[in-house]
């Protein structure tokens, strides 16, 4: 299959955990450190799924989701946001911006894979 | 995605290939509309279809309704691509009887999907 997933997070440890887990599950992973970095790296490269943190410098998760949805190539791809328990309004905001789903931090590798399988089919 | 049109007597043949998915849905709609304008009989055929989804299944249903309403005939050729057969089965479109709009009793969801 070779589905490509982009993970966007300013935390290096989360990026590592996410990419390690997804690679082990057979996906190809691209990482980005914030929204701006993500948009730069997406240029010209098709991805099947984006997993993004919400709190990031430069361009935060909500902003990234809005820009992705405005881009014809990313209009319909699934986008998963990583939220924390305390960010209920953020979750709503993210959904309104066009996020497909969310994972509440902290999460286990198995939960991550389950959600990815859920939205990628 | 790549479409070919061919007029064989009064039957317009439209051949679909490539990704019949939401990314191309607006284009697919235009092709079906144009074909419907051109002929009284429409035959949809498939070649090298790589992917499809619910939006294309909806379009087929919509096209058939439109054809029936304007007294035209729309048929789907066989064999049909496996990805399309699977999408129709998985989304539950297969019917024993056509819907109330199907006055010709020519519902496209009755045969050829199993």
């Amino acid at each position, binding site marked *: 299959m070779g589905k490509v997933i982009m993970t966007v997070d*300013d*935390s*290096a*440890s*989360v990026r*590592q*955990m996410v990419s*390690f887990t997804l690679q082990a599950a057979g996906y190809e992973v691209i990482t980005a450190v914030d929204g701006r970095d993500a948009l730069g790296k997406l240029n010209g490269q098709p991805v099947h799924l984006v997993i993004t943190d919400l*709190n990031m*410098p430069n361009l935060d998760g909500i902003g990234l989701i809005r820009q992705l*949805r405005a881009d014809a190539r990313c209009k*319909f*791809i*699934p986008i998963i946001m*990583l939220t*924390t*328990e*305390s960010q209920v309004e953020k979750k709503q905001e993210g*959904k309104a911006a*066009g*996020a*497909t*789903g*969310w994972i*509440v*931090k*902290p*999460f*286990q590798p198995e939960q991550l894979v389950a959600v990815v399988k*859920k*939205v*990628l*089919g | 995605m790549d479409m070919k049109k061919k007029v064989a007597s009064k039957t317009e043949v439209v051949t679909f290939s490539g990704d019949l998915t*939401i990314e191309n*849905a*607006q284009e697919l*709609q235009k092709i*079906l509309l144009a074909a419907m304008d051109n002929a009284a009989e429409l035959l949809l055929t498939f070649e090298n279809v790589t992917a499809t*989804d*619910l*939006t294309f299944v*909806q*379009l087929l*249903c*919509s096209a058939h*309704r*439109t054809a029936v*309403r304007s007294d035209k005939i729309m048929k789907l050729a066989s064999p049909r691509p496996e990805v399309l057969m699977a*999408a129709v089965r*998985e*989304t*539950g*479109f297969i*019917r*024993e*009887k*056509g*819907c*109330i709009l*199907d006055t010709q009793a020519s519902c496209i969801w009755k045969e050829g999907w199993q």
Partner: protein
Amino acid sequence: MKDKNREAYKEEAYELLAELEESLLALEASPEDEELIGRVFRAMHTIKGSGAMFGFEDIASFTHEVETVFDLVRDGQVRVTKDLVDLSLAARDEIRAMLEGDEPEDVHQRPGIIAGFRGLIPGAAGEAGSGPAPAPPGEEDSWAGAPATYRIRFRPAADIFLSGANPCHLLNELRQLGDFNVVAQTEAIPFLADINPERCYTSWDLFLTTSRGFDAIADVFIFVADDSELDIQMIDDGTADRGDYKKLGEILVARGDLDEDSLTRLLAQRQLIGEALISTGLVSGDKVESALVEQRHVRAAQKKRQENEGAASIRVPSAKLDKLVDLVGELVTVQARLSQTAINFQDSQLTAIAEEVERLTGDLRDNALNMRMLPIGTIFSKFQRLVRDLSGELGRQVGLITAGAETELDKTVLERLNDPLVHLLRNSLDHGIESPEVRVQLGKPARGKISLTASHAGAQVIIRVQDDGRGLDQEAIRAKAVQLGWLAPEVEISDKELFSFIMSPGFSTAREVTSVSGRGVGMDVVKKAIEALQGSIEIDSQKGVGTSITIKLPLTLAIIEGLLVTIEEDYFVVPLSVVTECVELTREDVARAHGHKMARVRDEIVPYVHLRERFAMEGLPPAIEQIVITEMNGSKVGLVVDQVIGEQQTVIKSLGRVYRHVAGISGATLLGDGTVALILDAAQLVQGQAGELLN
């Protein structure tokens, strides 16, 4: 992989802390700088979020307090002051200390910092503290019940595709939960000129037969539920026996697609109802199609269930099974007599018949006993609930893991095993597993673990209850045993022996001991119950790490392997499961022991019970007696008898009411020639001896 993640987190956290210090100091100089405030917030947010993910729950919950305040600073509700910067710097140092894993000398600083931050929140002071995020739902929620059938009506939002969701994936996910049928409702699909091909016009009626329950279905729709119309109804609970589900018209009425009056009118027309409905336009073709599929789906599910039940099992009252086992037991006895007689007659024809009967009887016995075997999982599932409820009550976070649910045990054993296991689990929860706060401080995961496993080992079943709680305190138990006079202060004994004290009656009645020893009262009751099942129980524990309790049980109570022995003219049976060996006891041995009932066996001093004396039997013992060495709970005790005959399959008969409570006798059996042999209760016989041993 886990350690690698933890290391990566630490490294990152150190970097963030360094950056944090810098930002905080800069913030003091320019307290209005939003960029700086954002940086501080993000650093705290990442330290918290990732910390919780990689097992640093203490850091996560502590940092949460700081993050909460900086979130308010970001919103302009709290101003940056010198106090806030001081407090934040102190918090930063505290996080660093936690990262390094050494508790600062002054642990009281932490609550002070937390209180300081809470005090900064306008309005409710100290209210905002919401501890660490609750543990994610564990695998224990996937308890499977009987399969039920659900009707799910799902109408996604028209713009569902714009959120990246694909309804087909959801349908496929449901398909994996069980038997699944899907009918698309297409009425809303517009004509080609009017359709917006990027919108979803389809809704669905879905039929699912699954044992995973309502929540598993709702979970599938978790991301789309807010924007979709979703209705999940159980339409068959999986218990109805009949194979005739509702009629088509009734289904439509039940769904609200048709009113009852119209149905009655239609039925009067004596037309095929489906045709009539569509031709009159009362109900759309899609809806009729859906109702037809529902009818077919439920009927198929019911039929499958019936077939399964019909083919796989028939119900028999357990009393009938007990009677069967009883009869088989008697047959085994008669067969033994037949074999004995055949040997005496030395008739080859009779011997051949006797051998055949012996073989058949053996098979019959195994089969009959097998019928009463039940998988232990039937009681396991109840324990999930027990642990869940109890842990809530006691303020613990505990996951129960079970394994070996398929292990089979005799029904009667299983029934009597329930209470002891409940007791052990309760003990683990109450006295073993620490509160989440304490666990986090000890560096254990907040969520404790209890595992309950069953497995076969030969003719025995091993059941183990294991927790990762505080373990038993050897010193406390030792001190208590010495205080009770059960143990001389200078005597060295193994941990196993030491732990077995807590199962002696009278040991753990004192409340303060139970709290230090980490076990509740009533272990003596558990031990008695297990021994009544011809089983044994052993405790293993390491302070701070956890406790493991191992129960060994015979597969069945109806027939045991026994060692047949005699005293005078009388026969006795010792359960073979407790016998380790037999040795001789001569008059000289007895003389050498100077009146102590002790024998030297392989360089070990073993106390013994002289059964002839114990049962006050007349006559003189033979010159050479036999000691049957038994081992229970790690200690050996001998039983002295006249003669050891050999191994014997023993069908246990319970004693009459008058004899039932005779100490040291647990039952009786019939020998091949019809003689009665009493079955010795080794545990009870030995118990009296343990006290004497010390004096």
